[in-house]
């Protein structure tokens, strides 16, 4: 009994940290599920403009990305700072978009899926419309009419319908 009273005087026992790994694992799984690994390495600056009238791209299989922007710092010395188009992992000229579209279409198994393809244009907000127009013209040439201007949700603006 004397022993017990002595212990009590020392204060509360240390909090058990046995559940700490579990908590951390839950956090880990959350982040693993929520975040998406970027498949391609970005070689262009890509600050998307903000907008409110956004539609979510539901079917990821049907989406192909076209990036447009100024080359990132490490590539400026080699490629200059004029805006460039990036397809997959490398810079491309606008006239290569047709081949890119056909290659992306060929990846899909059915014709219905090919018809429903969406090309998401991830364009830096500082890019001039000239190159964007060229890209759009190339897409029209190969009958890829469904496009999606990627944008960041604008939290500051009043969004009525979401």
């Amino acid at each position: 009994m004397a022993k017990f009273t002595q212990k009590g005087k020392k204060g509360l026992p240390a909090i058990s940290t046995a559940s700490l790994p579990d908590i951390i694992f839950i956090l880990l799984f959350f982040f693993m599920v929520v975040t998406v690994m970027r498949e391609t390495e970005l070689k262009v600056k890509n600050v998307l403009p903000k907008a409110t009238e956004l539609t979510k791209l539901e079917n990821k299989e049907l989406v192909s990305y076209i990036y447009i922007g100024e080359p990132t710092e490490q590539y400026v010395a080699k490629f200059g700072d004029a805006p460039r188009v990036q397809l997959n992992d490398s810079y491309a000229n606008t006239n290569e978009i047709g081949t890119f579209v056909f290659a992306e279409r060929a990846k899909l198994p059915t014709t219905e899926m090919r018809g429903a393809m969406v090309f998401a244009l991830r364009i830096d907000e500082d890019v001039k419309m000239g190159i964007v127009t060229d890209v759009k013209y190339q897409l029209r040439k190969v009958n890829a009419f469904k496009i999606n201007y990627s944008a960041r949700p604008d939290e500051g603006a009043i969004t009525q319908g979401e």
Partner: protein
Amino acid sequence: MARRNKQGAGEINASSMADIAFLLLIFFLVTTTIDYDKGILHKLPPITEEPPDNVQSNKRNTMVVLINSRDQLLVNNENVSVKKLRSRAKQFLNNNGRNPKWSVSPDEAIISLQNDRGTSYGLYLQVQNELKAAYRELRDEYALQKYGNKFEDLKVIAKESGLARDKEKVEDVADHFPMRLSEAEPKSIGE
């Protein structure tokens, strides 16, 4: 001590588990980026050789939005800021013949957009966004008044129920305010 060993291997110390998990967590935090998979849907027109319709005859029903290479907006020859574009477009579309300068009816109204090759993409998208928003707000107002639901909600209802009369509602609203955004080939004055 010797007796303890006989009972079997001792418990593995699990206190470093948290550290390992932390390392993994930090790795994932650093390497992954949240991709915004959202955007403004747009449908491109097919390439045609035919000349466009005579614009002169329906001048009243056309709202011309011009953006120059200095990112300035001109709406029907008036200087307008981007913030006012939405209300301008709404007034023009929902005029129903009241003001002789604006459209006769929403289903005849066309918004024509022309930009320069030197226009910045940021502004271009903002203008697209505002015009889309104008249409959306008008459709919402109309749908609320007539059916008591917003346009988006009507679409959801029609999708879930699959009933013909729900689909008719959606079509009615969409037909009342058809989205007619036409884009002219950009000029190249200052790229």
